[in-house]
C-alpha cells in the first residue's frame, strides 16, 4: 500500500463508492506440483506469470448514481465488482464504500446444493447481514419474486440454472441495501423474468440507491444508467456519459433493435 491513500473523511457525505488507484494482480500459474516447479527451475523457465486484472483504476460514485460497467469479456468487470463488494482486497490502492452492499457476482451466488431453496434464502440473507426477523419479514417477497413454486422446498442442487439465478436475484434485490451490484444477472433468465428484474432495478435506482450494473446490452444500460465506465484490459478506458460510453465500445450498432431484443442481447 502506498502512503498516498486519502483519508475516508476527506470525501463528502454523499460519496457512496471510492475506488482509488486500485490494482489487483492475479498470477497465471504455470507449474503447480513439486516436479513441475523443479523441472521449470532447472530449465530456467518462469514458474509464475502475473497480470493485472484491474490496473490502477480510480473513480468515485455519488449516492444514487447508477453506473453501467461495460467492457469486453475478461476486461476485469467482475474482478472490480468483487473488490467493491468486499470479497477481494485490492493489492494496492483502496476501495471505500458506504452502507450495506447487496447484489450478485455472476449468477446463483453461493448456494449450498444440498439445502432447500428455503434454507438457502435464510443463509444467503444472513450473509448479506440480515437478521432472522428481517429475513422472515421479507421471505414472502423473496419467494414471490423468485416464483419457483413447489421447488422452494427441494434442494438447490436440483434447480435449473435459471431457477437458481431467479432465487439469487430475488434474495439480493430484497435486501435493504445502499449499494446494489448486478453482474450480468440477466444472462440466464427468461424474457418475462428479465422484464421483472429490470422493473425492480429501476425501482431500486429510483429509490436513491447506488446501482452498479454490468451488462453487454447497450439498450438496458441506456435505460438503467446515467453514467458508464468502460474497462479495457483492466484499465479504465472511459468514464462519463452513457451514449458516449456505448459509442466508445462500438456497441452502438445495436441501436436499431427494439427494447426487448436489447434485453435479449444480454445473453
Amino acid at each position, binding site marked *: 500500500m502506498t502512503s498516498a491513500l486519502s483519508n475516508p473523511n476527506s470525501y463528502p457525505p454523499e460519496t457512496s463508492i471510492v475506488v482509488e488507484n486500485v490494482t489487483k494482480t492475479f498470477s497465471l500459474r504455470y507449474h503447480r506440483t513439486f516436479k513441475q516447479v523443479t523441472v521449470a527451475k532447472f530449465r530456467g523457465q518462469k514458474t509464475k506469470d502475473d497480470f493485472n486484472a484491474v490496473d490502477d483504476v480510480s473513480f468515485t460514485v455519488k449516492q*444514487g448514481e447508477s453506473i453501467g460497467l461495460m467492457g469486453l469479456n475478461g476486461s476485469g468487470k467482475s474482478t472490480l465488482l468483487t473488490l467493491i463488494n468486499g470479497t477481494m482486497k485490492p493489492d494496492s490502492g483502496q476501495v471505500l464504500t458506504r452502507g450495506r452492499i447487496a447484489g450478485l457476482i455472476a449468477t446463483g451466488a*453461493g448456494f449450498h446444493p*444440498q439445502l432447500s431453496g428455503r434454507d438457502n434464502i435464510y443463509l444467503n440473507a*444472513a450473509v448479506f447481514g440480515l437478521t432472522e426477523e428481517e429475513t422472515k419479514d421479507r421471505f414472502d417477497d423473496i419467494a414471490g419474486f423468485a416464483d419457483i413454486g413447489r421447488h422452494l422446498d427441494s434442494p438447490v442442487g436440483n434447480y435449473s440454472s435459471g431457477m437458481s439465478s431467479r432465487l439469487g436475484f430475488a434474495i439480493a434485490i430484497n435486501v435493504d441495501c445502499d449499494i446494489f451490484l448486478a453482474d450480468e444477472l440477466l444472462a440466464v433468465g427468461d424474457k418475462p423474468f428479465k422484464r421483472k428484474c429490470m422493473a425492480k432495478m429501476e425501482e431500486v435506482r429510483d429509490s*436513491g440507491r447506488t446501482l452498479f450494473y454490468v451488462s453487454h446490452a447497450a439498450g438496458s444500460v441506456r435505460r438503467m444508467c446515467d453514467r458508464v465506465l468502460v474497462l479495457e484490459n483492466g484499465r479504465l478506458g472511459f468514464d462519463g456519459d452513457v451514449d458516449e460510453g456505448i459509442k466508445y465500445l462500438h456497441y452502438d450498432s445495436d441501436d436499431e433493435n427494439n427494447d426487448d431484443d436489447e434485453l435479449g442481447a444480454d445473453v
Partner: protein
Amino acid sequence: MTEGRYLVDAPLAPPTATQGLLEVFRRRYLLKLLVRREINARYSGSFLGLIWSYINPLTQLFIYTFIFVLVLGRDRTENFAIHVFCGLIVVHFFTETFNAGTRSIVRNKALIRKMALPKEMFPVASMMVSLFHVAPQVVILLVAVLIIGWAPSGLGIAAFFLALGIIMALGTGLALMFSVANVYFRDFASVVNILTNFVRFGVPMIYPYSIVDERFGDAAAYYLWNPLSNAVLLVQRAFWVGTTEDPEKTMLTEMPDAMFSRGLVMLGVAVVVLLLGQWVFRRFENKIPERLT
C-alpha cells in the same frame, strides 16, 4: 437526479474491514446457520439421520470394551473401556475440528468466492459442528458411568469443561492456520490427516498415564507439555476416576499432580495458539478468493 435526498448514515469504509474472530462472534446468527447447514448436509439423504451420531460412538465403546477388556484382558486399569472412551471423546473432538477445519475454506469456495463474509466463520463453524457431536458421546459415556456407579462432582465437571475449552481454542487455532495453508497447497489437508493419526497414540488413551510415569520417570513431565494429554487426563478425571474402587487412590496412582493448574496453563497455551492462528489467517487471507479455483 436523486442525489441529496437519500443519504446513508454509515461511515465510508473498506468493504473488507472485519475484526476477524470478533466479527464471527458479532455475526452469531450467520454462524448458527452455517453450523446448522453443515449438520443438516451431513445427514441429508440419510434415513436414521442424527441417530448416527449416537451409533458411531456406541460401536466404538463396544469395540474397545471387547478388544481391551475381553481379548487382551487389561486388568491393570480398572474400567478400561471407560478410560479409553474418555480419551476418545477428546481425540475425536480435536481431530474432527482440525481435519474438517483445515478443509473448510476450500470446501466452501462457492460461498467465499462470491460473497463477502468473515472467512474465519468456516473453521469456527467446523469446530462448532465437532462440538455438537461431542454431546451424544457424553450422553453415552454418562449412561455407562452411571450404570457402573459414578456420582457427579463439581470438580469433575469443572475438569470436563476445562478440557473442552482447551480443545476448542487449540483446535480452532490450528484449523485457522492450516485452512489458509490448505488454500495455497492442498497438501496440507494430507499433512493434517497424518498429524492427527499421531494424536491417538500421543495421549493416555489406550494406555494409562501411570505407564508413562513408570517408564519415563522425570521425562514424563515433557509428556505433559502436550495440551491434548492434559485434556484427556482432565476428562478421565471427570468421568473415569469416579468409577474406580477407590477414587482417592486412583487420583494418586493414575493421575499426575496439579492437574488443574497445569490445565489452566494449557488453556493459556491454547489461547495463544488461537491468537497465532488468527494472525496467520489474517496475514494470508487476502489471496484466498483468487486461489480457490
